[in-house]
């Protein structure tokens, strides 16, 4: 992102220091992660020590300092999904994508993550791909799920 684009985001929140989380989330929406340069620029522009920004960026699960793939799969491991076999869905995805949870495929296609409850507990196990929720999953539905996202 250019500095002008970051400026626009900051101005959207009237430059308020309390909006730092929202500002970082907006940057991440564009970049799919938080690039070092962007954080440095935000720090300088908003007069917030970089260490504080770094602390926020590492505290919240929604923020990532590592680049993410074009698609993001979040497998739900809330209690209801856990007792209904959400862990097996995650393992199947790990095997099929040949990555561990938290990693991104070599071709930068998919980042695999886990989330603790999406509030779709009735339909577990559940996963979200790029914001779209898929319910009633089973291990054998995983290949079809992966095919939908190139």
């Amino acid at each position, binding site marked *: 992102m250019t500095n002008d684009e970051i400026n626009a985001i900051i101005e959207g929140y009237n430059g308020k220091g309390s909006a730092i989380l*929202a500002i970082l989330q907006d940057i991440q929406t564009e970049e799919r992660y938080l690039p070092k340069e962007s954080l440095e620029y935000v720090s300088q522009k908003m007069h917030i020590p970089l260490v504080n920004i770094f602390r*926020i960026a590492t505290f919240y699960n929604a923020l990532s300092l590592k680049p993410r793939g074009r698609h993001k799969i979040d497998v739900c491991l809330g209690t209801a999904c856990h007792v209904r076999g959400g862990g097996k869905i995650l393992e199947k995805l790990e095997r099929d994508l040949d990555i561990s949870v938290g990693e991104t495929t070599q071709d930068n296609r998919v980042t695999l993550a886990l989330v603790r409850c999406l509030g*779709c507990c009735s339909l577990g196990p559940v996963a979200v791909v790029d914001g779209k*929720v898929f319910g009633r999953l089973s291990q054998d539905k995983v290949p079809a799920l992966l095919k939908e996202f190139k």
Partner: protein
Amino acid sequence: MKIRAKTDLEKMREMGLKNLYPGQAKISVGMATCGLSTGADKVYEAIQKEVEKAKLPIRVNQTGCIGFCQREPVVDILEPGKPRVFYQEVTPERAVELVHRWVDNEVVGEWLFCKMEREDWIGEDKFWNYSIHHIPKGIDGTPDYYQVPFYNKQLKIALRNCGFINPDHIDEYVARGGYFSLYKALFEMKPEEIIGEIKRSGLRGRGGAGFPTGNKWESCLKAKGDRKFVLCNADEGDPGAYMDRSVLEGDPHSVIEGMIIGAYAIGAHEGFIYVRDEYPQAIQKLHIALQQAEEIGLLGEDILGSGFSFRINLFRGGGAFVCGESTALMDSIEGKVGEPRAKHIHTTESGLWDQPSNLNNVETWNNVPIILSRGADWYSRIGTEKSKGTKVFSIVGKVNNTGLVEVPMGITLREIVFDIGGGIPGGKKFKAVQTGGPSGGCIPESLIDLPVDFDRLTEVGSMMGSGGMIVMDESTCMVDVAKYFMDFLKGESCGKCTSCREGTKRMHEILTEITEGRGTLEHLDLLEELGWVTAEASLCQLGGTAPNPVLSTIRYFREEYQEHILNKRCPAKVCRSLLRYRILSDVCTMCGRCTKACPVKAISGKRKTKKEKGRPFKIDTGKCIKCGMCFETCKFEAVEVQ
């Protein structure tokens, strides 16, 4: 249109009624997240296309979730003079057919789950009657909504509008009595009177701790400060609980109205709703609702011409469970990391930016307008002596009917699990109910007749929490469940207190040892001791309640722990290190599906074909990674788990 007087509100109600009950057929698709996850968007599209193409006299509408999430996508049709019908598990193909049948005055009986002849307007103490004089063909045998086991014990106060209004239409909320309580509060009541009413109602915070709401408001009213804040905790982080999501997605205005009333009572002019990052749909619905309320003058300067001003800001969380804790939530809004503070001074005196702040959760705020419209006397007649009103529970896990149920406090667990939930699927045996999320505990079968309220759940070592109820059957391992929660908590502990940061981690390590066959009986004593220290020495309730899942499972399921430790066996067949998969050669049909499914090629044998005799399949235990794919794939139950 700006609402400046009660007559304006009445006019809006008229508009809303026309949208709720147009003089033609209206088809509504439940499009909350649960609906969308099963393809409600495609169903909506299919209906809209078909109605346009065939020029059918039907209005296509969207609504929130009616609670029976398991049967999503749910579609309902309402037409003057006819009973309202609710279809379940609708697909785009079915949708097209049922629309055409409806026009031909017919329903597809086997796709229906219930019909409705009158609608409960609980806020106004009346029923809206559909005055039926026309019965569609094929409806015989369809049970009435109020008779269906899933609904007949429910009393919907918090969920009153979910599934019945379009959440994007403020006029539909007004039509069902919305914002009239706000009018009453602003023009007919003094702040002290409102607080008195809330106190008398006996309403206790629905977020978990159950603190009396009226008392909280009162101390915030009395607290001195330049600015005061009213906050809504929509950081619904307890895994397995999603009633707040459903309310925000299906009836956002009920929360906003409650907050404005609270702000007026306390003397606050600024509010925040802190919503989970994981709930994009709720954020979107709230955004629309706040905008609408501002446009017509229900939020902002001089609300309804009363001179009172109040604004609400929407704050999106960052995916941290601990931010559901009141002080962590406030720090998060201030732009800091969400770490709990020491609470020597209550947040009602020194909260957000050290100003008096009143925080309630979604369901609590949502109850406020109803208490004002129906009165504290009515409200306090519902429930038990110390827990008044209703509570929404999400009944999920190993149970036949999963979804959101709202019941009067004091109903027994048995009624919830067996009468409403319909018991355990697959003829399996009930084992426990987990309530209260990671702060709660597992309640065993021996306590199934426990009346559910704040105090009784605490007595048995669990807690109400936000209302998640995860049903577990004989195939759920209680040691694994305890380990699951410790894994959750060690990841979500903010790390400020050593006792919580290290305590949850150590408990998780010990539980891992036990589930992997390296446990000793001393481990149980150590877990109890660690649990005690974690609870006693931690600053906030995340640590304070963290040992509950461990302690309650040891208390009620000690034998299961001992089985893991002494006999290296997992009776529920969950703990992988203790399992062994084997194919029963006399049952194996030699179809070969398991070998195709096996990711590590651990299964050998020969497929039986017309030409060849085949050889039963066998698992090489050295190669087997115990993923369970063969077990899930086999249609003949030839794979055995030991």
